């Protein structure tokens, strides 16, 4: 097991003098999560842990039991008569907007006359306890006229049913290039979806305010959006809604838009009853009624030369969006933006279809379409390698973007300015001992009839920025008190990723005070308004910059004040290690200066603001510079596969990730490891299965299997790329780390295919849809054995 980078310990008398020079908890230190001690002691309060106001009601939703159809009648009399019930709400109770679609309309708060998916909320009931509300919600008598339902992407495509128009990115004449290429392949792949499976389910507590407004405590990645939606639904000004969001027990995209509905329902009932109302979904209903990572069908047609160099690619990516647009337009765009992954496509036609199905509306999940686009092109890479008989790593390396030969522009026109991957892959190839292991594995596979090993190295190049330009902004609010203690607030939300820790480190560094002096406080819409969701790996990039801006403002005021007060120049005032050096014999503690400044009527509170420069994108032309920069990494995974059962283990993983100048190496490594394992789950054991009636059958952790502790690879080496500060002016030249490493897990899937391909001496590329459950692996083994047998028979016959 690998050692963490050295952790700077907090104050202590036995510290080396050199260390005493530094503040504790500045950037680049492996500081612990700001809530770590409260996490382990159970003291960290999640929304459901808060003490509720007297008289709080508990609300629950009644869910549709068909996939598609007309609601002929809905009789709630038994619901109302049930024990403990105080109130019910339906669509008719909504004074304002009935649609809470985040970008485009299409998401009614409750079913509006017709059912859009199995599990759609029809109404809500408030009762005196959670159990009574849940029981009552099951008592509705609903008559439906069932309609035929499209449950699969193929059905939706056949019906030409889309939630948004299809879109194409084009470079050159891909069709001609493919037709003229020496070699050509085409295939189809099914890419499964994924349940976010945040450990803390959806929960909101709405408290009515005296002015008719709402104060909402919730688990939500986008406080500003839920604030706006509550206002619209209740037909009140946004200013009358306050959202308080301290921490989430995981979000992963599943609380970017899909937390809104429950907050709105709680608010509706709070408004109607005048009492605080909590909505908390039971796990099975949470999994049924909220959106997931989109499943995709990818179809490709690729032309390449005898060495495997791509000449043209035609790929269509068809996403199963569910019943409404939600964020699908941007998600499918991001899949298309990543259909090149790290590879130069001389000509390309990339088409994205937003297929409508009569299922829950799929939504954001870490990677936001990127993983699906990337696994689609990595499938192409493996298939090309088998076709030309080369190690897939060599084909991948040859196809990488590079500074020479005009191979540095993406199919959407953005120039790759920094070519990090060639060197990074070279380094990982060495440290993981790829070539030697490749030989050892070949020998192992020749000697073993049942078990086979597989190995793969796959890279990641992930674009950083919201593709919706206006979201690339952030705000912060910083208060310094007269004892020198500091309250920090910003628009980003803490879901475990360590955002609050990193932003506090940034402020500590700017003001040169120990991080322990800084209290990160709950994200609140009354402190920092008009914020963006914490998503797109942008939390630290945006909010860290905004907080730095606020800290710089206060620092400047204090500097100017000190210079004037002590009759010196601003240039001579220096903040360092909890002290402010004004002149040679004039040193104040930070708190003393704060007190002095207050007495002299200097404002010690400041807002900060940031917007990302340089980015633009013309979607009509599908050309532009949508990403501020790219985050890069690569992983080598090794697997052991049982060819009798399809069971497998991931035995060793080596990762090298470029996080720029890391703000906190320990937290960054935590993000990388966690993302990798989460991605591994997506591609291996996490299988979503719907019945023919449209009901989600894998609706609990008993039936939907995320990785458990034994799935962690026995050897798991994670390293950060050294000496690679972001050349862009990001916060302390760091790089985003939330999403990119998830896609490192594609190496697991590729390694599984490698192990299976060994059964045909690496001459065939087994089709392996995801998730690659043991059953799918065995099916791939069956088919590759069948083809090999057939080939041998043919050879024998000829």
């Amino acid at each position, binding site marked *: 097991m690998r050692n963490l980078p050295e952790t700077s310990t907090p104050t202590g008398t036995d510290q080396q003098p050199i260390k005493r020079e530094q503040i504790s908890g500045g950037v680049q230190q492996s500081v612990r999560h700001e809530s770590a001690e409260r996490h382990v002691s159970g003291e960290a309060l999640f929304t459901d842990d808060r003490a509720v106001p007297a008289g709080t009601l508990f609300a629950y939703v009644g869910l549709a039991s068909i996939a598609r159809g007309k609601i002929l009648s809905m009789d709630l009399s038994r619901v109302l008569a049930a024990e403990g019930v105080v109130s019910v709400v339906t669509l008719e109770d909504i004074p304002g907007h009935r649609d809470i679609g985040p970008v485009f309309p299409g998401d009614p708060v409750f079913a509006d006359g017709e059912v859009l998916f199995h599990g759609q909320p029809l109404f809500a009931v408030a009762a005196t306890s959670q159990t009574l509300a849940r029981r009552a919600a099951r008592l509705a008598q609903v008559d439906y006229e069932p309609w035929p339902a499209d449950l699969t992407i193929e059905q939706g495509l056949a019906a030409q049913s889309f939630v948004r128009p299809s879109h194409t990115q084009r470079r050159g004449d891909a069709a001609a290039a493919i037709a003229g290429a020496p070699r050509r392949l085409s295939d189809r792949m099914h890419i499964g979806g994924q349940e976010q499976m945040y450990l803390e389910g959806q929960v909101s507590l709405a408290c009515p305010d005296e002015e008719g407004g709402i104060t909402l405590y919730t688990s939500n990645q986008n406080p500003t959006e839920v604030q706006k939606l509550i206002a619209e639904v209740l037909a009140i000004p946004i200013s009358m809604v306050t959202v308080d969001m301290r921490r989430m027990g995981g979000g992963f995209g599943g609380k970017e838009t899909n937390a809104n509905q429950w907050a709105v329902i709680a608010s509706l009932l709070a408004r109607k009853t005048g009492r605080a109302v909590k909505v908390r979904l039971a796990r099975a209903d949470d999994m049924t009624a909220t959106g997931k990572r989109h499943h995709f069908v990818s179809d490709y047609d690729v032309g390449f030369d005898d060495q495997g160099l791509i000449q043209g690619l035609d790929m269509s990516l068809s996403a199963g969006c569910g019943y409404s647009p939600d964020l699908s337009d941007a998600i499918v765009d991001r899949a298309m933006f990543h259909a090149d992954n790290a590879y130069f496509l001389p000509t390309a036609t990339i088409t994205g279809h937003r297929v409508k199905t009569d299922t829950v509306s799929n939504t954001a999940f870490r990677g936001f379409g990127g993983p699906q686009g990337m696994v689609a092109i990595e499938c192409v890479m493996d298939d090309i390698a088998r076709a030309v008989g080369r190690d897939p790593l060599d084909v991948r390396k040859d196809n990488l973007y590079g500074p020479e030969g005009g191979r540095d522009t993406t199919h959407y026109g953005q120039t790759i300015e920094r070519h990090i991957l060639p060197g990074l892959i070279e380094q990982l190839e060495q440290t993981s001992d790829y070539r030697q292991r490749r030989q050892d594995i070949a020998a192992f596979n020749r000697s073993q009839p049942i078990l086979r090993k597989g190995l793969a190295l796959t890279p990641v190049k992930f674009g950083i920025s919201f593709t919706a330009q206006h979201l690339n902004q952030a705000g912060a609010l910083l208060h310094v008190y007269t004892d020198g203690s500091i309250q920090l607030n910003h628009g980003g939300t803490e879901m475990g990723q360590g955002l609050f820790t990193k932003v506090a480190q940034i402020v500590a560094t700017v003001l040169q005070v120990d991080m322990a002096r800084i209290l990160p406080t709950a994200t609140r819409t009354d402190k920092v308004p008009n914020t963006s969701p914490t998503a797109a790996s942008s939390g630290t990039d945006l909010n860290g910059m905004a907080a730095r801006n606020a800290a710089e403002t206060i620092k400047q005021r204090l500097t100017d004040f000190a210079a004037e007060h002590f009759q010196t120049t601003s240039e001579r005032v220096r903040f360092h290690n909890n002290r402010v050096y004004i002149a040679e014999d004039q040193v104040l503690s930070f708190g003393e200066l704060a007190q002095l400044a207050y007495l002299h009527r200097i404002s010690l509170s400041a807002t900060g603001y940031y917007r990302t420069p340089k980015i633009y994108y013309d979607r009509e032309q599908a050309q532009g510079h949508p990403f501020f920069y790219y985050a890069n990494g690569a992983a080598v995974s090794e697997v052991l596969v*049982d060819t*009798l059962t399809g069971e497998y283990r991931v035995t060793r993983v080596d990762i090298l990730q470029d996080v720029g100048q890391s703000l906190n190496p320990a937290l960054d490594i935590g993000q990388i490891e966690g993302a990798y394992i989460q991605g591994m789950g997506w591609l291996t054991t996490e299988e979503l299965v719907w019945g023919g009636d449209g009901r989600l059958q894998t609706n609990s952790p008993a039936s939907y299997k995320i990785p458990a502790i034994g799935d962690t690879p026995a050897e798991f080496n994670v390293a950060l790329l050294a000496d690679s500060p972001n050349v862009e002016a990001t916060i302390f030249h760091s790089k985003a780390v939330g999403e990119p490493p998830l896609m490192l897990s594609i190496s697991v899937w590729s390694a599984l295919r490698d192990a299976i391909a060994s059964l045909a001496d690496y001459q065939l590329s087994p089709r392996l849809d995801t998730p690659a459950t043991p059953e799918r692996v065995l099916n791939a083994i069956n088919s590759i054995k069948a083809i090999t047998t057939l080939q041998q028979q043919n050879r024998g016959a000829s």
Partner: protein
Amino acid sequence: MPEPAQRLTQTEPMIEFLLNGEPLRITDEDPNCTLLDFLRDRLHHTGSKEGCASGDCGACTAALGELDGETIHYKSINTCITPLGNVHGKHLVTVEELKQGQQLHPAQQAMVDCHGSQCGFCTPGFVMSLFVLGRDEISAPDRHRIEESLGGNLCRCTGYRPIIEAAVQMFDPALQAERDPFTEREAEWVKVLQSMNRDQDVELSGGGHHYVAPATSARLAQLLQHYPAARLVAGGTDLALELTQQLCSIDTLIYTGRVREMIGVSETDTHLIIGAAASYNQFGPALTALYPECRELLERLGSRQIRNQGTLGGNIGNASPIGDMPPLLLALGASLRLRGAERVRELPLEQFFLGYKRTALQAGEFIEAILVPRPAPGDSLRVYKISKRFEDDISSSCGAFLLSLDQQIVTRVRVAFGGMDAIPRRALECEQALLGKPLDDVAIAAAMAALARDFTPISDFRASSDYRLQVSQNLLKRLQLELNSPSATLLSRVNQHA
């Protein structure tokens, strides 16, 4: 809904237990309430979290201490599926208790130091599983033991590596606190628990529901006559789902976990006798001592918490088609001791399962013990479980094979499968194909073909019919490989060679 039957005793119904070192007496509480709901909603102890309410995620894990002579033995449990009454006479330790003043417990400090928490929601559950591991071991255990202890705790953030590191680091002497209340106060707590554990019935009533925990088999038989509609509950790992998922009310619960005759494990010259209410971790060592080949199955059955709570009687009594113990016990030729008010009888296990969730139990009858024959010389046992995930998953197929080989000829064979039909049952055609044959390719091919006549499995979200059949057939190939070359250089199991 019928009125709950008249109570049998005149004393005030109440349960007593230690909660974080202090005695707690509960008189008027609905026995359908789970321990987690009691902690969170009644006591506002919100450190334990609800992640699933089905015993699958471990966020609600607490430590339950039980008297073991003059000591208290702690085990991890899922409070979300534990009926409140089950903690009577025990010491429940929740995450709130571990931190003493400002001093974190070593399990907590190691988690902090190793960056073992990200969102923090699963963390209290991990800490409690680590706490129990820390009491069971004196020095850092190996990776396998750590995984076995923590397999029932899901984390969606970290990828587990730092938690595995914390499980090692918590044994660092530098982290040990000067004072450990669990040692210092143990003698005091033992006395309190002893005073709570008397031989009478324990009862709890509230919300119109009733809970009785008898101390003897005879009394249990009597209660079943008195409450014919009562449901038996042992660990509650399956029954509690009716409460938390289906939102059922159960009028009368009778708890088997205090019944003297049902909680022990004993051995005779011919059999291992496992009390129906013995948990997996209670009878596991004795069973694996006789049959080391079932160790993997026992470690992959549910999770540590489930194995601490779940019982063999429950696994059999549920008559689920996917219970993991029945195929093993069928292959071993186990039988059941069934007790009613009037008589005790023995029944071979294969005659117990009648159909989907239907058994040969008669009214008023219950499983008192399971009788497992000792291995005969020359017997070879293999048990193979196939599931999507190795840990804490339900089998797509589970096959158990008991063979006697003489001069390389199969002289006795019992093959049983779970997950392949509405009940776990023997594969008689497959057995016939093997009997009297050497384990060669011809016989194995015939046995594989026979298996297709034995079973027509269903397709569901766990696996398709085709996969279930093919993988079960292929397990015969694995069996052949392993039995023919026991010191194999040929590798056959990914989870043994990874």
